[in-house]
């Protein structure tokens, strides 16, 4: 870890002047993710000039605007595809995507799937608040069964998207999920994800008291935090219970949201593979040319 810097120095160094205040409501968790990302970058010792941020549409996608770095605020759901292009053009840049649950898994699900499958070297920070917050509280693909939204006023009858399990199945290099009100684990995971040369997903459960909480009797932020506490279980504890627990215990934990690091593997990212391919082709072409051929 580099020299400790205080909050004021942190703000001075990382926040984009002229963009504050943020659009976030009281109790929203999104602002904390900014702090966590800054701390992860600080611990890594990276320069903001070497990082490009991209985002889609929604509350969470406004975050790059507050960071004093290159930022591409794109169209709804497409940030990961835009980010793929940024990385392709300049593989020396570290690419970080901010997205939300609706942005990433609703309208943008296909781009997410393929970037994870290709193992594109980028870090996706997904802020999951179980709802479309910016547009006023419509049902998200991540909405827990039975939850209320403006477009599911009688309760959601759909199964919620388990984004981390999907990313894991696609072979993403790094996958983690944490509730945002505990800082240590998210910072560590963001750092590990950024360091990983493949596709990294860090899903942060971020409370939305305004659009989600109010409708679901969780309007007070403390209540949402309690709900997080009661509804989540560490992956290790989950697995222990499923192996050794009683039927009653198994039934209870099977309804909970698992948190922790789902996957952390080192494997070649897309652009490392691509570089190998072009190097081999260019070497071959040059050898043909040096041998007097025309290199066609």
């Amino acid at each position, binding site marked *: 870890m580099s020299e400790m810097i205080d909050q004021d120095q942190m703000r001075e160094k990382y926040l984009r002047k002229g963009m504050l205040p943020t659009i976030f409501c009281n109790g929203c968790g999104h602002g904390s993710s900014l702090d966590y990302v800054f701390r992860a970058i600080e611990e890594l010792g990276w320069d903001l000039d070497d990082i*490009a941020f991209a985002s889609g549409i929604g509350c969470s996608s406004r975050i790059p605007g507050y960071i004093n770095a290159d930022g591409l605020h*794109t169209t709804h759901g497409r940030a990961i595809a835009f980010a*793929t292009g940024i990385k392709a053009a300049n593989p020396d840049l570290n690419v970080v995507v901010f997205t939300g649950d609706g942005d990433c898994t609703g309208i943008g699900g296909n*781009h997410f799937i393929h970037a994870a499958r290709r193992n594109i070297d980028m870090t996706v920070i997904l802020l999951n608040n179980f709802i479309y917050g910016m547009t006023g509280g419509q049902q998200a693909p991540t909405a827990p069964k039975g939850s209320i939204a403006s477009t599911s006023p009688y309760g959601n009858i759909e199964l919620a998207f388990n984004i981390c399990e999907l990313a894991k199945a696609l072979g993403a290099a790094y996958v983690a999920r944490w509730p945002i009100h505990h800082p240590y684990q998210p910072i560590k995971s963001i750092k590990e994800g950024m360091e990983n040369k493949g596709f990294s997903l860090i899903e942060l459960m971020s409370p939305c008291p305004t659009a989600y909480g109010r409708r679901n009797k969780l309007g007070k932020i403390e209540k949402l935090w309690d709900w997080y506490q009661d509804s989540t279980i560490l992956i290790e504890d989950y697995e222990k219970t499923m192996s050794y627990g009683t039927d009653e215990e198994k039934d209870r934990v099977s309804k909970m949201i698992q948190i922790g690091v789902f996957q952390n593997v080192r494997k070649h990212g897309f652009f490392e593979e691509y570089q190998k391919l072009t190097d081999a082709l260019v070497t071959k*072409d040059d050898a043909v040319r040096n041998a007097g051929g025309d290199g066609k």
Partner: protein
Amino acid sequence: MKYERDPERIRRVLGDKVQFIQGDMAVAYGGLLAGVGFFGGYPITPASEVAEGMARLLPRVKGTFIQMEDEIGSIAAVIGAAWGGVKSMTATSGPGFSLMMENYGYAIMTETPCVIANVQRTGPSTGQPTLGAQGDMMQVRWGSHGDMEAIAMAPSTVQECLDFTVECFNLAERYRHPVCLMTDGEVGHLREKVVIPDEEDMELFERVPATVDREEYLPFTASQTRDSKVPDFAAFGSGYRTYVTGLTHNERGFPATDKQPDHERLIKRLVEKISDDREKLTDVERVDLDDAEVAFVTYGASARPTETAVDLARAKGVKVGMMRLKLVWPFPRKEIYELSRKVNKIIVPEMNLGQIYHLVKEHAAPDCEIVCAPKVGGEMHLPHELLEYLGVRK
């Protein structure tokens, strides 16, 4: 490593100076010669050969080819790559072009230089996938939502597929705008001779990089260093820390979404940076127009049978000529008006039910008769069909 254009390597990879190739492949050649460092695409008939050419050629010049998951992702990655600092392009056809419309608007709003080749086929919907058409000429102009200007070229030959792709890149870089090469299934799948231009015969325009101090740099206003409404460009990673958004933004790039003057100022500049140069951009070919009493106005594949019809009619003594629009958008209003003052009648052959016809009618003098000569269904006009508009029998 960031892509660097290597003219010698590009020509070595392209091979012989004179070749017999498809229009689609010529688009890929043009892209390489222009210095494209990134191509993102998705298979679609009749444009797939552009992606296939790029997949084969681009890695050998150290550029990046990715077959994206769909056309929305393709244009998104292309725009991302442009901000990453390289020239980038995609190729598609009608259905894919429709999917790209939202991000086409994003590229216009964010002043992102890139090239989209649309190898047009019939529509709407899936239409006739293997057959050519010119049905997207209005979509390229108005297909995304909101107010905008468009820049689009229409090649009539395989050589022009190559040359115009290079020119589209020059226009994209000059105006910081997504420029469309509106080719079609006929020209795209046609095989003809092409000559690969020598390096010294090529003119390439590169986006003007930001040079003012970071604190003074305004990424979304008229140039701070030149007399131009086009801002200087700071690629990601260049240290300028640019924020780019599709929201209405102020000159610093920050969202400014609730005040009427902010939006009007931005959109007017985005339109005027192109429309101010309408006459400078105008690029038409004139065939037998000096003494013409009747003129065809056409573009792209339709110009081929039209030129034959002009020759046949001339042989029978009809004073007819042709104006071919190489650059369709921005529309050459003045040329059309002046032509309409010289001839009695303008006939507009198009492989659609009449799109550019309406523009010709709008800008022609009121006493000149404007005739729509449509043909749809995936076939080009036959010369004798066009002769009928002149009252000439075969």
